[in-house]
């Protein structure tokens, strides 16, 4: 009887997992192997067969490629700026929203709103605010008597400008933080109050430690999402000025689909994968030191 039940259970489990197993094989691991394999070939449309060229693509990437190193740099800078910015912004907003305030549901909706807008539309709209000659922000600057800024048209400002949009878009982090704050047990705060802790001390020693799992989760998701940024380059900048918004995913798109070098694009993808993996592993390893799970005894 128990054996029969076990078998029934296992059969049910496999049935449940069929779609996911197909997915893991055909849209995850097999393509991952293929992208790695393709990166050793030279292949574009028209050229009928891929040609094996060993490590050539990688050598070119790291030596003569006029885009790649810039591309790595701007992607990492963008991701770091956006992640830090949106973590601080959304934690701050969430803490304010967690107080007794009027129209809380409405305000929460306002901060969440940007997240549900199609990003293509968002970038088109923001391009008007950032316009270098007669845009709204430049109008504000001129009211303040400051010099005009070129925002997304200036190589030095394009990444911070796009990062600001990224922060603006991070409404989902606010809701998740808010959920976490509401889960912080009240007794902890009350105990700290009795001990005479001021609000900053309570934030530092009660709120933050209770929130670490959520901070970790948000950090991880924000990092992986922002490393893959591509829409602003597609919608607005085409990677410019210079290479300052030629994010790595855009570079991959450019090599593989615009300029039609599928093998070369694959080598970009492979390097990108390794970099994301390194970032994630580092994050996971360090997390042991600062993420506290309830009942962990720490």
């Amino acid at each position, binding site marked *: 009887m128990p054996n029969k039940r076990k078998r029934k259970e296992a059969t049910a489990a496999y049935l449940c997992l069929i779609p996911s197993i197909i997915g893991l094989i055909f849209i995850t691991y097999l393509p991952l192997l293929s992208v790695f394999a393709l990166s050793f070939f030279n292949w*574009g*449309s*028209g*050229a009928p067969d891929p040609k094996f060229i060993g490590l050539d693509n990688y050598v*070119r990437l790291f030596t*003569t*490629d*006029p*885009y790649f190193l810039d591309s790595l740099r701007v992607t990492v800078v963008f991701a770091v700026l956006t992640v830090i910015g949106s973590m601080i912004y959304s934690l701050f907003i969430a803490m304010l929203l967690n107080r007794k305030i009027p129209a809380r549901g409405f305000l929460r909706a306002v901060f969440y709103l940007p997240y549900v807008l199609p990003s293509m539309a968002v970038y088109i709209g923001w391009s008007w605010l950032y316009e*270098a*000659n*007669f845009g709204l922000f430049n109008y504000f600057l*001129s009211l303040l008597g400051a*010099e*005009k800024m*070129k925002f997304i*048209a*200036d*190589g*030095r400002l394009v990444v911070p400008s796009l990062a600001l949009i990224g922060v603006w878009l991070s409404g989902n982090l606010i809701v998740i933080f808010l959920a976490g704050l509401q889960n912080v047990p009240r007794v902890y705060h009350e105990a700290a109050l009795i001990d005479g802790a001021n609000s900053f001390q309570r934030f530092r020693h009660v709120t933050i430690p209770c929130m670490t799992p959520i901070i970790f989760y948000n950090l991880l998701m924000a990092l992986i999402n922002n490393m893959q940024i591509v829409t602003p380059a597609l919608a*607005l*900048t*085409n*990677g*410019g*000025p*210079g*290479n*300052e918004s*030629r994010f790595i995913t855009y570079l991959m798109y*450019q*090599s593989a*689909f*615009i*300029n*039609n*070098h*599928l093998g*070369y694009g694959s080598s970009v993808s492979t390097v990108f994968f390794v970099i994301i993996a390194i970032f994630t592993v580092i994050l996971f390893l360090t997390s042991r030191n600062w993420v506290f799970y309830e009942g962990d005894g720490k």
Partner: protein
Amino acid sequence: MMKRVLFGLLLCAMLVPGLMAATNEKVLITYSFWGTPDEAKVVQAQADKFNASQSRISVEVMAIPHDSYVTKLNTMATAKTLPDCGIMSEAGVLQFASNGLLADVSKMYGAKDSKPLDSLTFKYKGAPIAYSTANEILLLYYNKKMFDKAGVAYPPADAAKAWNWDQFVATAKLLTLDKNGNNAASPKFDAKNIVQYGAMVENLTWQLEVWALSNGSGFYSKDGSKVTINDPAAIDAIQKIADLNLVHHVAPLSTGMTDDAMQRSIIAGTCAMGTGGQWNIGTCLASARDQGIVDYGVAVLPFMKEKVTINTGGPNVVFSQSKHPAEAMEWVKWYAQEENSWGLIESGIWMPVLKKWYTDDKLTQKWAGNHNFPPYAQYKSAVVDYAMKYAKPASWYYVNNTNDFNTLLGSLLGEVWTGNKTAKDVITKGYASLVAACKGSN
């Protein structure tokens, strides 16, 4: 359950068009072109005329956005799902030809036919491989009201009287105003609070080539075999464009990324002069004038050392992957006749390709003598004659991999427009990469 039913319905809905196509007995030809679905309707209407004119071929139009056109064709070529024929983006013609993706069109024009202008023939290894479907040249447009207000004479429509670069800059200064109403030639001019610019020179990478030519040089040697953009004259020409904004403060910052400059400049009244393609007459200027938003004129480009403009125009091609090349060719040839794309010509979007339209005044009248155009004499001089006598083909008529090259050049020049680097620095430093890009190795 409801969801499953819904999904099933969705699946059926998606299958229906496929089934319908299968029951069609005519040879179905897909023709791709760049444009909005709106423009697709116009082209499909033409195709329907062709479909009605005979009983064997049925042409269906596929509209692909202009920005991603080459990309799309590339990906379709990889997937082996190219349409039968289509308009081809200039930047991809030679690359496609060198990859054997284009069918032979050499027999399209018989010995007795009036041929397209020679400058409109794409050549790969010296042999013609495609003919532009339309002609386009670069011009100088100007906003009349802004000139009148400043009391400055209009730019010349006659190439013989074309402004040299210094005259152009000097005029632009008179038309650049700060918020106190001082122009850029005045000592009291406040460059930090400009409210109106004198000139906008379009700096899309492919259009910049005209200035390199104008300065007596070019992006490539005459036969396209060598990259000469590092030539001091070519570099100087590009720097001169950047300096309009950086040094003279007579032009807005433009980073060569958008295609709506005419809207933002002449029509919006933010710039008094602007360079752009002839198509702007049909795509935005005519309707803006009808609505009373702008009164504009056309003029020849200013020049640095040589009077020159560049011409371009996407060719209609038959793709070698097509299963029905003969039928596709028949349609392409039919469509290439001016009377069959007349709507685009008389509205000012396309210029005709056959020589007779430029040399026979009666035909020129027929083409440009309607209310969509600027005054006839002006247009005849600044566009028709200019195109005949001063236009050189853009480099993609004879140089391969211009797509890679232009992407890279655009990337290199990004920092030049903002003044962070000079044209000399970036081009000298990027020259090896530019040469590699031109060979298609990146």
